[in-house]
């Protein structure tokens, strides 16, 4: 979630505490600092996921965090289908989904009547749901647990980067610990240190954008309630006249409540539990609840101009920040991690030139722009900036009662879906297609057996480039390093529902070249080894 002015009044007890441990890198006085290929700064969902991904690719990663605990409120709660598919590849998907609250239906109310409902995953045949709700502290705890299995990740708590010096061949970091400072050299530093990133300040980058004046009160309350597992959003509800409200379930009988306040509300008064309680009691119709977390926000939508500064690469909230209506904060950060990790791995191995990293900036800044645009539109709809904007919104809300187009214009948050990249890594279509994910789009899931999915097959081969091919009897011999997932034919995977072929607009012989992050690099009606090799070369930044 985007954090602007966070005034936290009650800290949920830290769920997990970690000890600081002295590392031999700190005992190199008089010697040159230890050299590391990658240092990731910030052990939030983005930094942890990136470290796991790199480790699974065989990279050694030092992961630094200035704190020594996970905790402090639920913060991000909605994790998207794409994030879950990523976490499946990192070995933590099942645990997240088992604990999380699965949902796909949202309802929008105006006053006391429902305007419409939507289903974010109206079709079957996907391994993962549209979303789960899960407190960020659980997500982080499961990721930290996963890191215990990965000796490649060296996670150092209470290690705070205090200075950074760019060099031709890397970055020199100064790190403060409870036992004093030490220095490290890294070929690359990945800054996943959040919206108030200190590394961003150290490289002297601007972080400009739009601040929304309206304030939002966000409370997580614990109660037993019979509300369904759906996202409920109100415009002008009877319990909170003239403003918007959101109710969303989390695990452990915790409910996320967002209440829009006006721009003149006094944050010091509004955050006091004795003032929050009656507002929430009016909403729920009772006061049998306990506070887990209360916070008051002003939202900002902004991004860095460049996500790459020399050898320092920014990912997640440190690079871009959005308002929370759309679940585009943590999810887009995870997409950053997934986009970056295979590229960085290839560059470190010398398979691809360093210029491949430029495509990380190109693709993910495009995604950031899209996320900022969507979340700005939602926030503007909730908090109109002028009388006329309010009038137009009123017209939409009243038209929504009797027209389909009005319902579709009501904007109570457009929820995160993977961005499609107009990317230098994609090979444009040369054949005719009338469906399926085009180059630059994310792969689609489909069943390949009872309880088995295409995303499983993609993951199980190891996340390298993959050729997804639909059998026509002829064998394809893909270039070295490309693994194959074959559908149909004697030895291929089954397509019991026909959904794989349908979702990929496949004919016998059709093949898709998938990048390690599950994006389509190229697709062919009649693949040749040469065409595949050319697309592979382009997708690795080799030409």
């Amino acid at each position, binding site marked *: 979630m985007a954090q602007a002015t966070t005034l936290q009044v009650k800290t949920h007890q830290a769920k997990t505490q970690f000890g600081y441990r002295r590392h031999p890198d700190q005992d190199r006085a008089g010697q040159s600092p230890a050299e590391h290929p990658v240092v990731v700064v910030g052990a939030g969902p983005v930094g942890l996921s990136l470290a796991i991904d790199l480790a699974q690719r065989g990279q050694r990663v030092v992961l630094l965090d200035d704190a020594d605990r996970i905790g402090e409120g639920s913060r991000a709660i909605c994790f998207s289908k794409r994030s879950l598919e990523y976490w499946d590849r990192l070995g933590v998907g099942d645990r997240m989904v088992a604990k999380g609250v699965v949902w796909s239906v949202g309802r929008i109310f105006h006053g006391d009547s429902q305007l419409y409902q939507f289903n974010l995953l109206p079709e079957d045949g996907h391994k993962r749901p549209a979303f789960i709700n899960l407190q960020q502290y659980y997500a982080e705890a499961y990721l930290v647990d996963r890191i215990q299995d990965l000796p490649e990740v060296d996670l150092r708590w209470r290690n705070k980067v205090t200075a950074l010096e760019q060099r031709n061949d890397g970055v020199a970091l100064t790190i403060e610990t409870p036992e004093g400072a030490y220095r490290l050299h890294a070929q690359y530093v990945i800054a996943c240190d959040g919206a108030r990133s200190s590394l961003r300040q150290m490289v002297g980058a601007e972080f400009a954008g739009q601040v929304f004046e309206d304030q939002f009160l966000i409370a997580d309350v614990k109660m037993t309630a019979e509300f369904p597992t759906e996202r409920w959003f109100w415009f002008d509800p009877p319990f909170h006249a003239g403003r918007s409200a959101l109710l969303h379930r989390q695990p452990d009988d915790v409910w996320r409540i967002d209440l829009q306040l006006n721009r003149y509300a006094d944050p010091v008064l509004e955050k006091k539990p004795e003032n929050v309680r009656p507002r929430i009691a009016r909403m729920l119709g009772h006061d049998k609840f306990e506070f887990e977390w209360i916070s008051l926000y002003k939202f900002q939508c902004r991004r860095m101009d460049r996500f790459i500064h020399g050898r320092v690469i920014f990912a997640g909230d440190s690079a871009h920040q959005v308002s929370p209506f759309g679940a585009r904060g943590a999810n887009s950060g995870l997409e950053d991690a997934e986009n970056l990790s295979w590229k960085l791995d290839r560059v470190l191995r010398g398979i691809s030139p360093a210029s491949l990293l430029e495509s990380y900036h190109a693709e993910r800044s495009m995604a950031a722009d899209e996320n900022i645009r969507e979340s700005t539109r939602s926030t503007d709809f909730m908090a109109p900036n002028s009388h006329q904007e309010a009038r137009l919104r009123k017209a939409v809300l009243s038209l929504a009662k009797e*027209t389909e187009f*009005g319902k579709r214009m009501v904007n109570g948050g457009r929820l995160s879906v993977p961005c499609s990249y107009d990317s230098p890594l994609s090979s444009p279509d040369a054949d005719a297609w009338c469906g399926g994910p085009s180059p630059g789009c994310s792969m689609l899931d489909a069943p390949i057996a009872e309880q088995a999915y295409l995303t499983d097959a993609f993951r199980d081969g190891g996340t390298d480039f993959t050729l997804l091919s639909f059998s026509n009897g002829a064998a394809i011999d893909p270039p070295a390093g490309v693994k194959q997932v074959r559908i149909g034919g004697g030895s291929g995977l089954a397509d019991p529902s026909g959904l794989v072929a349908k979702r990929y607009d496949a004919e016998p012989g059709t093949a898709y070249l998938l990048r390690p992050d599950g994006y389509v690099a190229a697709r062919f009606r009649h693949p040749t080894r040469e065409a595949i090799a050319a697309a592979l070369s382009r997708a690795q930044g080799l030409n």
Partner: protein
Amino acid sequence: MPLSTSSNFVRPDDAFRAVVEAHRGLTEEQSADLDSALVLILANHIGDIDVLREAIGLARRRMIDGQQQQQQQQ
């Protein structure tokens, strides 16, 4: 399809009159409400973002031209 600015109504006076009459007896605020809804209904009926943008462009240009004329007269 570009924005059509040729006359599309057989009886343009009827169209103008229909809009005028819709506003009869309304306060300024009510008129603004009516117009807002009407714009959105018609925009959706057109259903073409390029035509809509062109129409917005024409309406705004006319407003800016009007302001400049006023300034020159002063």
